[in-house]
């Protein structure tokens, strides 16, 4: 056991994977010498050699396309894209090729690769550095999309992603990289990709979120709990494949749900979750499923971040709204 933050847990998982499986290689911009702009790959080039950890040109399509070629040839590449806002030049490779080579070849060729991408706002960064466009990935058949929010999950999900026979987009909440520490096992363990994690049990309302917004969601649950509301909190963890059963089982019990995400509301993944809930449990619903999300704007620059980011208060208010009816 070691007490680590989320960034350290990811670094440890990559270290473990490089040590455990020689097919694993890392590639990405600035991940070698500097260990990445967030230092997630810190020390790995020195430890595992420049033949395992590659700095690449600034060319996201090239990074993902090359990783796909490596994966088809039997390796287990883990690519890093520097920020979610810089993943779009690679979007064509992801949707047209990474997610489809298995289908296109009827299982003959596969893409066991991981694309790690830091995402989310709240650190006052420049434009494009604060995106939460998980919805455009979760809509792609053939991909898995994973978002850890705790050090323990981060390590276990990343090791599972690297072992997964299918491609995984692995989104890392920048805001949580160094936010909390947790004791996690040093051993090789996996957290299953797929199931949601019930993080807190309760009977009155279900709060549903993932990644960076789990922090505000937890705080809101705490605040509501202090008021005597019995709150269930779900960390979705895996957006695709979505564990609708896990979500629905909770909401059928509580009858109320609030989905929280940082992306703009329109077309955000919260819509999928709310739609799925009403499809399966309309008659259990005591109130509409609420969404607490970003607005339909570009993620703003530093001075306006406070206007954009969903707050604990907004989540609490939405939960209250479901309880008041």
């Amino acid at each position, binding site marked *: 056991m070691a007490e680590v933050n989320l960034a350290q847990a990811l670094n440890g998982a990559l270290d473990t994977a490089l040590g455990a499986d020689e097919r694993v290689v890392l590639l990405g911009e600035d991940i070698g010498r500097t260990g990445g702009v967030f230092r997630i790959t810190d020390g790995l080039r020195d430890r595992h050699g420049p033949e395992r950890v590659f700095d690449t040109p600034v*060319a996201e399509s090239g990074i993902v396309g*090359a*990783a796909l070629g490596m994966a*088809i*040839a039997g*390796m287990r590449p883990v690519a890093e894209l520097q920020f979610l806002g810089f993943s779009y030049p690679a979007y064509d490779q992801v949707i047209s090729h990474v997610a489809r080579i*298995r289908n296109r*070849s*009827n299982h003959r060729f596969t893409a066991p690769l991981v694309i790690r991408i830091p995402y989310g706002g709240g650190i006052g960064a420049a434009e494009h550095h604060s995106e939460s466009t998980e919805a455009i990935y979760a809509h792609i058949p053939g991909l*898995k999309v994973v978002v850890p929010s705790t050090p323990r999950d981060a390590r276990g999900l990343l090791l599972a992603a690297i072992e997964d026979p299918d491609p995984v987009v692995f989104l890392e909440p920048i805001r949580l990289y160094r936010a909390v520490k947790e004791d996690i096992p040093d051993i090789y363990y996996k957290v299953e990709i797929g199931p949601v994690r019930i993080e807190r049990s309760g009977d009155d309302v279900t709060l549903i979120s993932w990644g960076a917004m789990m922090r505000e969601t937890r705080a809101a649950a705490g605040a509501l709990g202090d008021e005597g509301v019995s709150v269930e909190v779900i960390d979705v963890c895996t957006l695709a494949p979505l564990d609708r059963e896990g979500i629905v089982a909770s909401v059928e019990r509580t009858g109320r749900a609030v989905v929280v995400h940082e992306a703009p509301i329109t077309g955000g993944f919260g819509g999928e979750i709310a739609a799925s809930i009403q499809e399966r449990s309309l008659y259990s619903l005591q109130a509409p499923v609420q969404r607490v999300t970003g607005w339909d704007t570009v993620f703003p620059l530093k001075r306006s971040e406070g206007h954009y980011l969903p707050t604990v208060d907004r989540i609490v208010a939405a939960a209250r709204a479901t309880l008041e009816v």
Partner: protein
Amino acid sequence: MENRVSSRKSGLGRGLDALIPTGAGPTSGAVARQTPGDDTATMFGLIDPDGAVRDRLPITVDEMKALYADMVEARAFDTKSMALQRQGRLATYAPFRGQEGAQIGAAAALHADDWVAATYRDAALNWRAGYPWELLILGRTGDERGGEVPEGVNILPPSITVGGHMIHAVGLAWAEMLAGTDRIAFTSFGDGATSEGDFHEAMNFAAVYNTPTVFFCQNNGYAISYPTSEQTRSESIAIKAEAYGMPGIRVDGNDVVAVLVAVREAASLARSGAGPSLIEAVTYRIGPHTTADDPSRYRPADEGDQWEDKDPLERVRRLLESQGAWTEEWQSELETEATQTIERAVDWAESIPEPTFEEMLSRMYAQPTAPLREQLDREGGRPPSDPPPGQGGGKHAGSTHEAVDG
């Protein structure tokens, strides 16, 4: 599958520059502009259109006969496919007529287990590299199972997107290099593909990591309707290699032996650790872009005539004939055999049972995910009036026009 790839060693290895007859390096400005037709002097070639040999050929007459037979078989496939498409038995088809020399020559230069990432137009190339006709036809009937090549054949399903597959050949080669095998990756693409950003990133990655990748561009004069001469202002496609510090060469793409020699040289450079190179095979697309295309809208009907004169099959036939190695009987034997082979392949493809709904949903992941399992279950309740599998979407289309592929 029969191993169609020759294991002869070329004994070459002097680098691509040595192939240029004028002695001008392929990466120098001496490489001609890509006006089709007037650049034989600065382009690497061995056999002239009339069958005359410019240089001593590095292959035997028997090997030449084998190349010729392959080209005849490929042309039979192309002709048959066009006919099948008109009968509605194939989806849109992209003919390669006129490009057989480039495709057969290139594929003949590869090892049986080399990686190949080629395009929708490269059926001849893929076949010669090991992709069974049967599966190529099955794919073109509109069946994903056509992409499932046999174990040991390392050919990716033909790329439909323009440009995206070249970088895969870089990753494939990189993996082989890291694993220390002597396998290389070969990628074929068109002139049009060189305009895509992905071409640039693929070429640059290959050069930067020194991957054993052979970039093979069939410059057939057009990207659908857009002529090569308008796609770029560079002197040639080959010269673009210089932007990546990579060797590049222009080859007469209708000269099957010249292509074979150039690709074999590039492959042996790659195998020996000398890294990637770019080969531009200058050729011409005699037919339409696809069966949905009407070339008369964008090029004069007689433009192809000069290219008919440069036909890749005819020049080899003449050469063989001049050596007493070609007879009319042999020709009709070849054609009969080829036609029979293709027809057997068509019969096989058409005998394959219709793909099922379950297969469609089970192909996305190693195991169907929870949402897909749910969708598979729900399907148990699909109303029987749904269209039976395999009727395609025509009945949904309500559209009077034919399928159109870009």
